[in-house]
């Protein structure tokens, strides 16, 4: 398995991420086509919200984009052949059995950040996401919302050019949702491209720059946010927005 990230740069300014191309991408499992074929381009910094009913293939698309899965057919490529630094946050935060700050330091060490810089970067990351007081707290003892913010802090210290989020707030209460969305905006302000799945239309309205709408394993629409919510082009999208059941 090769690393998905290019070597870590200590510069705080992010290079703008290359564009992402899906070219005739299909993903099948045991002869059944679960996603695709789809072709689209993501450039700009989004935030791109990937929406659609359950089973539409949103999580698959995210994983194909991040490189966790390989397409059965077609190609996933980046412009100029530059694979950017990426990070991903999952629906359930995956944290190690150690303190909050130790989790961040671990991520930094995995990415070969020089030893002496790790603690400082880790503590700064915690502060930014309001977790400074919990540095020494065992990560698994934190609340769901705090854990998710910790996962985001971990992604932050790696200075990703692209951040993938897979329904990061579906298990959280409203206050926690607000805090996580604020964190996502921080990434956006820094220049990180956001690609995020959600089934919550209101969340999409709050965050989206553009929307990638899937249903039945196919991309039905890829439009700027306003256009999508005001005048959805596809039948499935219209049904979805009005809350009708869509298969």
């Amino acid at each position, binding site marked *: *398995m*090769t*690393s*998905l*990230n290019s070597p870590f740069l200590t510069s705080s300014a992010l290079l703008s991420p290359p564009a992402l191309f899906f070219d005739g991408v299909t993903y099948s499992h045991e002869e059944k086509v679960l996603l695709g074929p789809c072709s689209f381009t993501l450039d700009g910094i989004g935030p791109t919200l990937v929406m659609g009913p359950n089973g539409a293939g949103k999580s698959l698309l995210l*994983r194909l984009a*991040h490189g*966790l899965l390989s397409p059965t057919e077609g190609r996933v490529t980046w412009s100029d052949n530059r694979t950017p630094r*990426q*990070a*991903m946050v*999952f629906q359930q935060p*995956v944290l*190690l*059995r*150690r*303190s909050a700050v130790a989790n961040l330091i*671990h*991520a930094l060490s*995995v*990415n070969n950040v020089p030893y002496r810089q790790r603690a400082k970067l880790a503590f700064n990351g915690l502060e930014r996401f309001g977790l400074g007081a919990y540095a020494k707290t*065992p*990560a*698994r*003892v934190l609340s769901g919302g705090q854990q998710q913010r910790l996962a985001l802090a*971990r992604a932050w210290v*790696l200075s990703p050019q692209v951040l993938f989020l897979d329904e990061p707030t579906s298990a959280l209460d409203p206050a926690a949702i607000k805090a996580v969305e604020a964190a996502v905006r921080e990434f956006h302000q820094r220049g990180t491209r956001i690609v995020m799945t959600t089934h919550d239309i209101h969340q999409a309205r709050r965050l989206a720059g553009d929307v990638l709408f899937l249903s039945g394993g196919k991309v039905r629409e890829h439009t700027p946010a306003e256009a999508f919510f005001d005048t959805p082009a596809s039948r499935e999208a219209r049904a979805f927005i009005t809350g009708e059941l869509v298969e």
Partner: protein
Amino acid sequence: MENNAFYVALSLLLNFDAPLYQIVALSLQVSLLAVLIAALLGFPLGAAVALWRFRGRGGVIVVLNALMGLPPVVAGLVVYLLLSRAGPLGEWGLLFTPSAMVIAQVVLVLPILAALSRQKVEEMLGEYREQFVSLGMSRARMMPTLLWDARFALLTVLLAGFGRASAEVGAVMMVGGNIEGVTRVMTTSIVLETGKGNLPLALGLGIVLLTLVMLINAGAYLVGEFSRRRTG
């Protein structure tokens, strides 16, 4: 006779005489060292089998699991044949020494530590794999992280290995020879005293051995619980 044995055990513990002390000390040294070596070899082995796909992987897992039930006397016999002067490693001159006993017990304990750590690591991979790959970890890099994260479960695995080592007699008897003052340990002493018909003493020694193992397990449990509370 059972009452007799408890009194014998108690008096053994209270008048901890030099020969008994030596036997207890040797038993602990041999088994603890064997478990340590088996862990240094077995945990990375188990983690590696969990992490990498390769041809024959299923077979390796089956063999490791099966070897958990390796009869101690068979392990002893195999190590004896290897270390005997007539055998391939005879030049090392290790037969009838505590080192041979450690080797034989490593052979016994290694499959347990490898098989159980493999299972635990594989379980954890289900939860961690995607995040680890996302963070940019190679499979080799995942190994120490997974093993450390599994440390509470692995502590229990270590205790299982230690239990196996300290309880067995077949292997250490064969390769050690039960030589007084040199390779005599608790289990072989018990066999010896039983053979002399000295059953209360044999049982008393058994109680001493169990008490010792119980203390070690209690200690490990307390350490584990204390740490676990602190790290969630």
